[in-house]
């Protein structure tokens, strides 16, 4: 098996071809870049015309523009990814093509991962298409290429997170519309709820801390909540000191620092979420899993699963027997 066959499985090949054949994809990219461009123009206008007394753009202003653009991009990704991924499985189900796909030799994980990768590739294409917008910022300096790269890697991770949730919900829920709503709901929790929870917890924690006169502590636990927020994590990539202020690290003690950088925590926690989501999707896409013969333990596991299912399904049996009795004499009558 050569390299191409490893990477390009049939499902992925199909997804790539079909996606680029629909005019909707081109329109999506156009609309996205247009919105990003308008954002950039707006930010430039605000930063150069009002507020600033001097008319020249220094590197500080440029960096500010970069941050603003990056956050705007993050929000756009949060809007786009669920729409792209939450329909991948349920959409096939609604188009009545899923059953035929499931009877092929493609493994469940190949189907799920190909669907995810193809959606994320398209999303990446969109992000890359916005690079010219970023070049406006580069014109003025203040941002390193490394930072830009880090931000793009971070986007990739956020897309993977929302994509995994979208694909999982798409597998679990029969209807696309429901899967989309649930994925947006999950996105809302990740983006908005964590931020609000942080502000809430912070104010309570700080009030308690200062009123009780508790002993000096290295840091406050509330930072962990902000570590769950993509915006918080993104800012901590720009400004490493942001993690320390999020955790309210005591400046007086030079040794003390944030227990973990916000973005590190973000990656760790959500990597686990991604794995769980994809695992559920792969397990749930096919109702019949079969036994894995490679490991003896799993055969036993599968067998006990079946037994377990049997015992769950047992209760209706008495009814079933009654129904059988009802029907049985009639069948014999017919024989006569």
């Amino acid at each position, binding site marked *: 098996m050569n390299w191409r066959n490893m990477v390009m499985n049939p499902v992925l090949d199909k997804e790539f071809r079909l996606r680029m054949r629909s005019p909707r994809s081109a329109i999506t990219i156009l609309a996205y870049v247009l919105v990003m461009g308008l954002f950039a123009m707006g930010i430039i206008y605000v930063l150069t015309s009002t507020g600033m007394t001097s008319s020249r753009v220094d590197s500080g202003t440029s960096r500010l523009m970069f941050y603003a653009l990056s956050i705007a991009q993050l929000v756009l990704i949060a809007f786009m990814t669920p729409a792209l991924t939450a329909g991948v499985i349920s959409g096939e189900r609604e188009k009545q*093509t899923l059953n035929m796909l499931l009877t092929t030799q493609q493994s469940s994980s190949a189907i799920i991962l190909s669907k995810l990768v193809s959606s994320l590739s398209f999303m990446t294409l969109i992000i890359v298409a916005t690079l010219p917008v970023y070049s406006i910022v580069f014109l003025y300096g203040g941002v390193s290429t490394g930072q830009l790269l880090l931000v793009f890697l971070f986007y990739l991770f956020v897309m993977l997170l929302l994509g995994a949730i979208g694909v999982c919900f798409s597998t679990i829920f029969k209807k696309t519309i429901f899967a989309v709503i649930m994925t947006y709901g999950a996105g809302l929790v990740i983006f908005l709820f964590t931020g609000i929870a942080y502000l809430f917890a912070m104010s309570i924690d700080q009030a308690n801390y200062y009123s009780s006169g508790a002993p000096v502590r290295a840091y406050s636990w509330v930072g962990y909540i902000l570590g769950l927020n993509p915006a918080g994590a993104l800012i901590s990539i720009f400004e490493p000191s942001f993690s320390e202020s999020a955790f309210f690290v005591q400046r007086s003690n030079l040794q003390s620092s944030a227990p973990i950088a916000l973005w590190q925590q973000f990656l760790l926690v959500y990597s686990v979420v991604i794995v769980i989501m994809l695992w559920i999707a792969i397990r749930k896409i096919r109702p019949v899993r079969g036994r894995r013969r490679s490991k003896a333990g799993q055969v036993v596991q599968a067998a006990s699963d079946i037994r377990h299912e049997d015992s769950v399904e047992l209760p209706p049996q008495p009814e079933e027997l009654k129904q059988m009795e009802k029907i049985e004499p009639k069948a014999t009558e017919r024989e006569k």
Partner: protein
Amino acid sequence: MIEIRNLTKMYGSFAALQDVNISIGKGTVFGFVGPNGAGKSTTMSILATLLSPTSGSAKVGGYEVTDYPQEVRKLIGYMPDFFGVYDQFKTTEYLHFYGASYGIPRQEREQLIPQLLELVNLSDKQDVYVDSLSRGMKQRLCLARCLVHDPEVLILDEPASGLDPRARIEMREILKELKLMGKTIIISSHILPELAEMVDEIGVIEHGRMVAQGKVSEIQNRLRVKRVLHIRVLERAEELAGQLRDELHVSQVLCDETGVHVHFGGGDTEQSALLTNILSSGYQVVSFHEAQSNLEDVFLEITKGGGANELA
């Protein structure tokens, strides 16, 4: 080739299938008959590894479907009753995709796909987008799709539903060809009467239970579907009709310009005796023949009984 034992599928307390037993030998064409919602599609979905049964076992080629779905998928070609196509694919690309999904190398597919298109009479449509095909063509394309990996068993759920008579005949011709190729075929269809000549065995399912099963002729006999005899005589037709009403095994006699129509409940021996009787009574018989009762009659007879039971 296919062994179904005590297969039961419950949806909550509703039994979609109850203790279904089916056994289909290699190379047999099995017609699956039953009213809508009787459990045909459920059985076929279980065989196609798309649904897990509540209890019982289903084996394809000796492989239990719940334990070795991957092996079963290699053996079967499944055509669902309702299916969609990827509209933006061309016909050949469509088949390439499924061929690749079954792990067939590209070189092999390049040779195979024209043959498949030839088989289903779509050779002239190979560069056309699937979207623009008619319903009958899509149905045939889907059949070709089932065949890409040369499966031994074909599970065809209503392959001719929604087709016009001409398209149905085309579909039937293709199925005949597949039968000649030695495939084991399970086919559910409401045009089963049309398929009567190619079906070896039928199974009748109703309310999730098998009502009858076996060779078409056996079932006809077992259910004692009444024969209808058409008798034409030169004269005295009315008189003959009157006389026949008193005969054994005769339940109903109609008389019109075309002759006397007798609903006859006896077997071949009784039928022969009846003819002897008529001749010995001095009637000048022009023709004496049995109207072929077909699968449709069998189906109606069986389901009529079921319906009556349901009402009782």
